[in-house]
């Protein structure tokens, strides 16, 4: 009897010790999976790692006894490389949370893996709206923007302004297809017509053939469902072939501040497009961006992808700090993150929906004329704001199984 009782005590004590050890596990490993060397590396790349480091420093968690590590890898825009790295990160390096993961093809592949292994992905880089629709996952939050929102904001504004016939120039992979599909839907819904499309391989350098086809279509709007270097080359060469001076209008469906910087205002002026972050929106964004650009080799201002990495991680840190420790359980942490309203200086106040969609306002910008700009990086004029609830796909249209209807 005596032996039994002492065994019982010992057992309880051990269980308690084990229990508290789990609760006090204050280690986190962050994986920045991005394009570190290719055409999208200015949008994410090294800047995303800088943003993650800044989030770690600003969270103040180190002072509370947390140990946070950041690893970074280049997925080279290839889904197979992305998943191989992700698998190794989760299995061997015990990475808890993935950030950035730009390129929709890579993001969709990693999304499945993260769900299977119960890790977390805060996707700030990929565009495809499928991440919170048919492919939604209890482990993934889609933070910054998506194709539905871009289509909704830019597409609607352009059709309203009289651009009712569209021709698409589409990057031939998951992202381009999603952007073309979502924009076509908005165009048709707003009373416009899509009269043609041409799909070019990712990372093309010459667009003149495609532009000539778009020119011959006589469409009022040429919708560029591509990104990064593909978009900048399209815009530059469209100017050369007299497309804009011929009366057709280019619609940049996904443009980043880095693209505008690299084009120069002379070529980019007058373009309309949508972003959810711009460095010069308010004091909070300006302060962050200044600190960020000082740490960048080329002194670049943050893209919305990089800003999203910071904002997403700040929210993640708040959540796990409130939980008292890292449970290493993706579904549990993401559920808690969805319960907690978000608030940070970059994207303001927001919420995360059941389908994993982070909501915040979408801004319609116009690129300034060279005469209006005060210097490098002073590029945008804000011409419209859509509140988060209206900017993204409404839950009533959602095909995500996580949404209860």
């Amino acid at each position, binding site marked *: 009897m005596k032996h039994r009782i002492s065994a019982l005590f010992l057992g309880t004590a051990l269980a308690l010790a084990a229990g508290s050890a789990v609760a006090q596990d204050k280690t986190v490993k962050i994986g920045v999976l991005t394009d570190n060397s290719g055409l999208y590396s200015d949008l994410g790349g090294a800047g995303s790692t800088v943003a993650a480091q800044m989030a770690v420093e600003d969270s103040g968690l180190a002072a509370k006894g947390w140990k946070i590590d950041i690893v970074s890898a280049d997925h080279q825009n290839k889904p197979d490389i992305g998943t191989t790295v992700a698998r190794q990160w989760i299995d061997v390096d015990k990475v808890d949370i993935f950030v950035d993961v730009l390129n929709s093809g890579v993001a969709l592949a990693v999304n499945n893996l993260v769900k299977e292994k119960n890790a977390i992905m805060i996707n700030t880089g990929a565009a495809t709206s499928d991440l919170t629709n048919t492919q939604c996952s209890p482990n993934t939050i889609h933070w910054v923007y998506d194709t539905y929102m871009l289509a909704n904001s830019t597409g609607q504004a352009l059709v309203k302004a009289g651009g009712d016939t569209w021709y698409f120039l589409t990057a031939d992979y998951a992202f381009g297809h999603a952007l073309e599909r979502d924009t076509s839907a908005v165009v048709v819904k707003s009373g416009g017509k899509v009269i043609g499309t041409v799909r070019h391989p990712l990372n093309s350098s010459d667009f003149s053939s495609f532009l000539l086809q778009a020119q011959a279509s006589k469409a009022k709007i040429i919708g560029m469902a591509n990104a990064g270097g593909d978009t900048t080359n399209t815009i530059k060469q469209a100017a*050369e072939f007299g497309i804009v001076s011929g009366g057709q209008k280019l619609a940049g469906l996904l443009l980043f501040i880095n693209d505008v910087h690299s084009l120069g205002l*002379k070529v980019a002026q007058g373009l309309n497009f949508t972003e959810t972050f711009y460095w010069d929106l308010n004091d909070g964004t300006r302060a962050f961006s200044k600190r960020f650009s000082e740490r960048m080799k080329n002194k670049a201002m943050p893209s919305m992808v990089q800003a999203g990495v910071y904002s997403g991680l700040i929210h993640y840190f708040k959540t796990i700090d409130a939980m008292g420790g890292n449970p290493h359980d993706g579904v549990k942490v993401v559920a808690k993150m969805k319960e907690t309203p978000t608030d940070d200086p970059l994207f303001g106040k927001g919420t995360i929906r059941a389908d994993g969609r982070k909501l915040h306002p979408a801004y319609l910008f116009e690129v300034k004329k060279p005469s209006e700009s005060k210097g490098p990086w002073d590029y945008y004029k804000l011409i419209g704001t859509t509140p988060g609830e209206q900017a993204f796909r409404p839950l009533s249209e959602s095909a995500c199984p996580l949404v209860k209807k």
Partner: protein
Amino acid sequence: MQALYAQLLVGLINGSFYALLSLGLAVIFGMLNIINFAHGALYMMGAFCAYFLLHLTGIGYWWALIIAPIVVGIFGMILERTMLQWLAGLDHLYGLLLTFGIALIVQGVFQNYFGSSGLPYAIPDYPEVGGFRGLQGGMNLGFMFLPIYRGWVVVFSLVVCLATWFLIEKTRLGANLRAATENPTLVRAFGINVPRMITLTYGLGVGLAALAGVLSAPINQVRPLMGADLIIVVFAVVVIGGMGSIMGSIITGFALGVIEGLTKYFYPEASNTVVFVLMVLVLLVKPTGLTGRAA
């Protein structure tokens, strides 16, 4: 039908770049027996050189056409003197690996400092002749709007290609050069400085790459990876044309530009692969390339 003419012309424009770049490769391979994988990086350096000339010193496009190839050519000659010359006589693989490594380093350095989205470089707007401001604007050919700059690229590269061909195939200097490749010992016996000639040849090949870089700066963004994206296609062009054949690489360059242009029209999804499909076919039927001599 009109659209087809336009695509043929656009193909010819892209072909000019292929021709200029594959010509440089062919010269280097033919004379030095080096598979120059750094060619794309040197092409990129040419474009960056034009950018720096304009933005740091205010020297415009026309001078850049001369200065950039010389500057990058000198860089190439330093490479040849300090590294490549030690590989003479070794297996091709060593040269390929070394130049590939150099390309990665050069691209990495540029990307570190300038990012991947690139820098703007405008089409020159001087001198003003009549109604034309430099090479800006375009003219309506009926079946298409031809930017003047693109027309200039085709004409200029054709001239440069033919001049290079003439230099190597028809002049005394070229004859010495070809003789030096065949039998360097004997040529040296005639009192000709063969190592210096080889260095200059490498400089010429590199200069051609840099020239193509300057030509493409106003069309494409000046980006660190602009050459990496192009070089693989250019290698396919060289293989199809026959390694080391000067005229072969010029003609193949233009022809493949046109074929690629047509693919962009009829089946755009395949436009990045059509060159390689052709390469496989040519290698199956005629392993030495279309104009190559049997080794």
